[in-house]
């Protein structure tokens, strides 16, 4: 009964300070579509990168067609028969569509590249995807959706044994998704094994045969598609935490507290639709919703990273216009971004410098904090947040994820913000650090700050928030308070059952 073409056994990958994958098993049969599910940081991408040789595994084995393999890099994986469409389009924007499909393996004629053949075959291939486009134009000329289709076309044309699709549908519209599914079904019928990663649950149920759920680097389980209901699936992804956590007081604001922030009809075209929100002083508002629901975009809009193009915003009753993060900073707002590495840490600077950065930015560079003041601030927050480091001069890049997150938190706490927006502050860090960060948020609320808390872990949202805003499809679809905030209810809204 073992018709697995791929088996991954007891895969372990250790990143600095966090175990990205812990004894994960995964198998793929020929001629099946196997969905890989989990929130960001669950380990999906890491598992894929391990399979394609981008990340090296610390323990475990990969068996392809009965042979143990050790992919060195994506090129090597491709020659082994593993073809991948990565999450970000990884083609060359300057080359033509046709060439992107064939570069490196162009058909030749008289020792010359046969452009006619390339263009003809590309047209043929893409028309199989329902794309009737001019394949001689540069890739950058076309929308992300088309680029995505082109990169799928390249992966498919290689005729691999295994096709990995990492979030291929995030930029496709319904019609395009259907086309992709048709192609996937054809490939399946030909006996190819397909690993499909997506955060659209509808699509999982539509196309997959089996699904594997990961959470925090652990395997939750592998199920046939009919064995799990949608709510059960969401529960497994973001529901009750496995680890025992201590009790936390929810940060609910007293009804007579001042309104700290009032947003009315804000919006960014294509990212956030008509968003209104009121937050009181000392209140913690949780943003629940799946990846891609508009949580992060809303946070960036409020902070001016991607300024709102309409609506109005009031802070403590005053009208404000926030067009840049600098404006937000001057209005005592703070924002810990989701992608810590890309948008948070300044890796080569010391902990001290990272901590004082925002405060210093508000003061302007001509009014520097003295070295003693900096030292004092850094030491205070290192102690307060329990940052594990010998001293404040260690580079932030050398810390573990949890400690980096604490430093970013310290950076904003040092500005004594009225409004603190935290986007996934607890992702990818260990349980202990998680609990500490949750405690800190609540402490901030007690001291009178208002906190917006975004998380994929529903449990921690419910545990901390006085109000829960539920987002779906770039819209705020519900606002629940007090006793309404139950896991069941929120899950139903997210799953779209309501």
């Amino acid at each position, binding site marked *: 009964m073992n018709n697995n073409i791929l088996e991954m056994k007891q895969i372990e990958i250790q990143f600095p300070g966090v175990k990205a994958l812990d004894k994960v098993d995964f198998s793929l049969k020929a001629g099946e579509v196997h969905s890989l599910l989990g929130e960001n940081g669950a380990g999906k991408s890491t598992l894929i990168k391990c399979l394609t040789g981008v990340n090296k595994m610390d323990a475990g084995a990969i068996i392809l067609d009965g042979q143990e393999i050790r992919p060195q890099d994506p090129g090597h994986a491709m020659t082994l028969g593993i073809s991948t469409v990565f999450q970000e389009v990884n083609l060359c924007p300057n080359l033509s569509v046709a060439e992107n499909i064939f570069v490196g393996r162009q058909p030749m004629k008289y020792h010359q590249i046969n452009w006619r053949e390339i263009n003809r075959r590309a047209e043929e291939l893409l028309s199989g995807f329902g794309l009737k486009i001019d394949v001689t134009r540069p890739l950058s000329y076309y929308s992300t959706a088309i680029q995505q289709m082109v990169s799928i076309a390249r992966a498919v044309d290689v005729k691999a044994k295994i096709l990995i699709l990492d979030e291929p549908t995030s930029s496709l519209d319904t019609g395009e998704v259907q086309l992709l599914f048709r192609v996937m079904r054809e490939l399946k019928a030909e006996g190819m094994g397909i690993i499909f990663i997506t955060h659209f649950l509808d699509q999982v149920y539509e196309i997959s045969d089996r699904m594997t759920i990961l959470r925090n680097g652990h395997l939750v389980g592998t199920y046939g598609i009919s064995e799990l209901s949608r709510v059960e699936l969401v529960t497994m992804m973001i529901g009750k935490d496995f680890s025992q956590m201590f009790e936390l007081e929810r940060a609910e604001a007293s009804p007579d507290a001042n309104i700290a922030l009032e947003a009315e009809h804000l919006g960014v075209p294509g990212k956030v639709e008509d968003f209104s929100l009121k937050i009181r002083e000392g209140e913690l508002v949780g943003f629940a919703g799946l990846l891609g629901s508009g949580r992060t975009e809303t946070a960036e809009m409020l902070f001016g990273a991607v300024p709102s193009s309409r609506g109005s915003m009031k802070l403590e009753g005053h009208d404000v216009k926030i067009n840049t993060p600098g404006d937000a900073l001057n209005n005592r707002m703070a924002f810990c971004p989701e992608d810590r590495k890309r948008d948070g840490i300044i890796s080569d600077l010391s902990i001290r410098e990272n901590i004082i950065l925002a405060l210093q930015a508000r003061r302007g560079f001509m009014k520097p904090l003295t070295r003693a003041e900096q030292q004092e601030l850094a030491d205070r927050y290192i102690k307060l947040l329990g940052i594990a480091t010998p001293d404040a001069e260690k580079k932030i890049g050398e810390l573990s994820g949890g400690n980096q997150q604490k430093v970013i938190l310290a*950076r904003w706490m040092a500005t004594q913000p009225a409004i603190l927006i935290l986007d996934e502050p607890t992702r990818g860090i260990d349980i202990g650090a998680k609990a500490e960060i949750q405690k800190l948020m609540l402490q901030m609320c007690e001291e009178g700050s208002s906190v917006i808390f975004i998380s994929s872990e529903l449990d921690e949202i419910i545990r901390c928030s006085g109000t829960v805003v539920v987002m779906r499809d770039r819209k705020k679809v519900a606002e629940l308070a007090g006793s309404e905030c139950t896991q069941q209810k929120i899950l139903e809204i997210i799953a779209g059952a309501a």
Partner: protein
Amino acid sequence: MKNSKILGAVMAEVLLLLVCLVIRPDFFSISYQPTTGMLYGNIIDILNRSSEITIIAMGMTLIIALGGTDLSVGALVAVSGAVALKLLRWDVLEYNTPGDYTVCNFFWVLVLPLVVCTLMGLFNGFLVAKGGMQPIIATLILMVCGRGVAQILTDGKQFTTGYAPFKVIGQGSFLWLPVPIIITVIVVAFMAWFTRRTAFGTFVEAVGINRSASRLSGINAAMIIFIAFAVTGLLSGVSGLIYSSRIMSNDSNNAGLNYEMDAILAVVIGGTSMTGGKFSLAGTVVGSILIRTIVTLVYYFGIVSEATMAFKALIIAVVIVLQSEPVRNYLSKRRAKKS
């Protein structure tokens, strides 16, 4: 340990001087010349002659730390000299008769070249920070047409002047030392203060390492870039004044020729990475002095004076290869194995 990257340059410099000390100890002799009231000697000469590059490299360090380069500094040196000499020899243009007096106030002779160069630096900064252009290509524009501007200003003529106060800048002495050294010390001290005693240096490093994160921390990255280019323009102007005072003339074709290359080299040898990030002004000073030391040594040993360039290239190549990431990783791995 903290400054391990500048170690390469320091060691190379020390090694060179040590070799020199062994072979020809008289290289280090310094004598006092009562007639000019100045100290003379090879060491003084190295410091003196490296001042133009050191001054420019102070600004270049900031730009490289931001992840850019400025190719226009050499052309700005020519522009600065042209403006100064035009002001000093206003009469030539007006009446076509020789003369050593100035029509302009000497104050303007000093200030206007700096203003013009700062404005050109701002132009670079504008193209980079607001126009979103790559620094290397944005500054290529002024590099190409800067010398043309210098020639237009002076009508393509090369003026000479004998105006004594102007001569002081490049050839005078103060406290027994050549004035360029004094100016360099002042500039280095100011830049050290500006980058390390204000938060400007930290902001430059933050933007150079991670522009997105810096922006989200509320830093106005465009403003930082703007200032860095303006400062570099200003310092090129200072360097141009020293250069033209040394020759008491303007030379639109050769003034500051290849200065951009030497300044960039000084910065990189000094341990600042061309991809941006942490920078070291001290390293840059050492780098600049190292470049000049090589030249002076080759001249001093005379025998192979034609080899200056090749010798320079070899030493630079060694320093840069030693500093390169793979080599450093390899060395630190070996060190870790040993212990």
